């Protein structure tokens, strides 16, 4: 047992923290207010290898594994959830699917420009009536010579409208259901028949874009089948598992920043003649936050270690996601309460953090789905299959 970070991760964290402070924080309020993607940050991040942190250096990544990627997400989560979301959807799920199940040729062609940040990725699974329920996917892919023809639409796709390369799940055999009947495809934005639908107007993470994707006789070359034909379910489950751990890392950063901000505020805000930091209600709120954050930190980085060392991690990743998102919401909510009226004002970062945090309990599998994943894994260990 050794819980210290190797030195390369310490330096990596320091670099990312400075990057987050100097390059990301100054834009956080602006991109939220203007409802736009911080492309200038993405460009700078790409130059530092931050668009492909977990991927090996031979694919143009940083070779920092899930651990390094979690560090990035934690530090970005402290300053701007939108930026963390854009980079997270690109790296953690969009490009990740290609890294996990792509052929060497696909990695050469698609992963390299993604890892270097030249191109942006998205991951398209969710549909209007099929999010967590993959068996209900309606987008169809039908073979036509050397092509598959895709028809259908995807919704709530983070980076959907800015992505160059999109990993898309479509039904190839409706008789087989989720297992065996769904295949993953790599779709380029220029493929004929692919278009962007409406953009969502969201409560938070307004510096990231969420789009509807439309496939109308969209022709995808057969070599763009990602992973085994019919095994799309496995591809996206593996991808989402990894995405969940890093998403929790962003939540960890958000929670930590909220706690530190609340402490600084409590030290200067006086009521009844003393700083509110002298009030026990504040002490207990801070103590609860710190305890949950510490537990979350251990959970996140242990799960990252499981992933980096190739060990089973499905259950732990789901725990990260449900616990991380709920800790972040709770901490930011408590921080907002400590800020009082100031916390409700849009002049101040807490208000944005509060809106941003709420999505983490919802996207990439709601908290309810995570609980189902956790419970079904636990019951399976004792030999009982449960259905959602």
């Amino acid at each position, binding site marked *: 047992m050794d819980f210290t970070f*190797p*030195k*390369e991760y310490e*330096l*990596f964290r320091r*670099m*990312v923290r*400075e*990057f987050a402070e100097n390059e990301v924080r100054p834009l956080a309020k602006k991109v939220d207010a203007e409802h736009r993607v911080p492309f200038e940050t993405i460009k700078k991040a790409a*130059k*530092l*290898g*931050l668009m492909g*942190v977990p991927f090996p*250096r031979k694919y143009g*990544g*940083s*070779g*920092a594994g899930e651990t*390094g990627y979690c560090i*990035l997400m934690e530090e970005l989560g402290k300053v701007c959830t939108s930026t963390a979301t854009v980079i997270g959807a690109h790296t953690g799920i969009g490009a990740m699917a290609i890294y996990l199940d792509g052929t060497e040729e696909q990695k050469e062609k698609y992963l390299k420009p993604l890892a270097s940040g030249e191109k942006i990725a998205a991951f398209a699974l969710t549909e209007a009536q099929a999010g967590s329920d993959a068996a209900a996917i309606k987008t169809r892919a039908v073979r036509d010579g050397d092509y598959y023809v895709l028809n259908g639409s995807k919704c709530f796709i983070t980076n959907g409208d800015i992505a160059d390369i999109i990993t898309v799940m479509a039904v190839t055999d409706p008789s087989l259901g989720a297992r065996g009947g769904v295949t993953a495809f790599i779709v380029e934005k220029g493929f004929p028949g692919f278009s962007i639908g409406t953009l969502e107007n969201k409560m938070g993470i307004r510096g990231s874009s969420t789009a509807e994707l439309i496939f109308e006789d969209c022709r995808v070359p057969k070599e763009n089948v990602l992973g085994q034909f019919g095994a799309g379910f496995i591809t996206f489950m593996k991808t989402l598992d990894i995405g969940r751990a890093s998403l929790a890392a962003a939540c960890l950063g958000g929670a930590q920043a909220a706690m530190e901000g609340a402490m600084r505020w409590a030290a200067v805000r006086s009521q009844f003649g003393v700083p509110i930091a002298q009030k026990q209600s504040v002490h207990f709120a801070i103590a609860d936050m710190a305890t949950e954050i510490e537990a979350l930190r251990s959970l996140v980085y242990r799960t990252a270690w499981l992933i980096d060392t190739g060990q089973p991690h499905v259950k732990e990743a789901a725990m990260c996601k449900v616990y991380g998102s709920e800790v972040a919401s709770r901490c930011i909510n408590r921080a907002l309460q400590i800020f009082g009226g100031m916390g409700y004002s849009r002049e101040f970062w807490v208000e944005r953090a509060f809106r941003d945090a709420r999505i983490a309990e919802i996207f990439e599998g709601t908290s309810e789905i995570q609980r189902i994943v956790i419970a079904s894994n636990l019951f399976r260990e004792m030999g009982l299959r449960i259905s959602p």
Partner: protein
Amino acid sequence: MRIIVPIRQILDPRGFTVSPRHERIFINREEYIINPNDKNALEVALSLKDAGEAEVIVIAGGQARLDDALREAMAMGADAAYLLTDEVLAKTDAAGVAEALARGIEKIGDFDLIVVGQETLDTADAQLGPWLAEYLGVAQVGGVRQASISDGVLRVRRNWGAGYAEVEVALPALLTVASGANKPRYPHGGRIMAAYREWQVITWNSEDLGLTAADLAPLTQGRGRAFPPERTLGERLTGSPQDVAAELVQQLRLRRII
């Protein structure tokens, strides 16, 4: 073209607080960072490398922990790193380190340019550049802000009074770079991993440099430290804006500031 950049390390100022009242330094987190001005020097070297064919070598002398500073410099873009350390080098002072660095640079050999940060942030030590120039017998330009090279001629922009001067320098030469001359690049994520996992820092001890403990005996001796007196608040002017402005002008005139 071979460029050598010496690197020094300081205690991270964000990790301690100075209390003049208690005459004490409270260290909350003992972490060392590259002397910021040395990062300016490295940035000048790396931008020369970006512009053409150049090899940037970083070198540091003193305590073993400088290894981290050198790896960070490699992550920023340096091609090779040399660490001069052993028990004797760890205990010497700035003059001893300068001598060791000069020997180390000679041993690396074939350099065209040495780029040094003008001073350290912690002790405002500005002797390394002049010392190395003297020892190695090369021309020195101080207060450097930018450098570029064409046809084998180095063009340097340096501070000159309230403005700048552009000078041409024959190689080999040594530049001391002004603090804040540029915004140093961040280390690259992938290079950080490689710096620790793939690349080596070449280590030499005092014997390798042909130096004895006597050669490296400190020339300076610490006698303790004192804190500057606390500054008192100035005079506060009150009244209407007109009155305050008039009073301010009056006071400035009285003090012959305007």
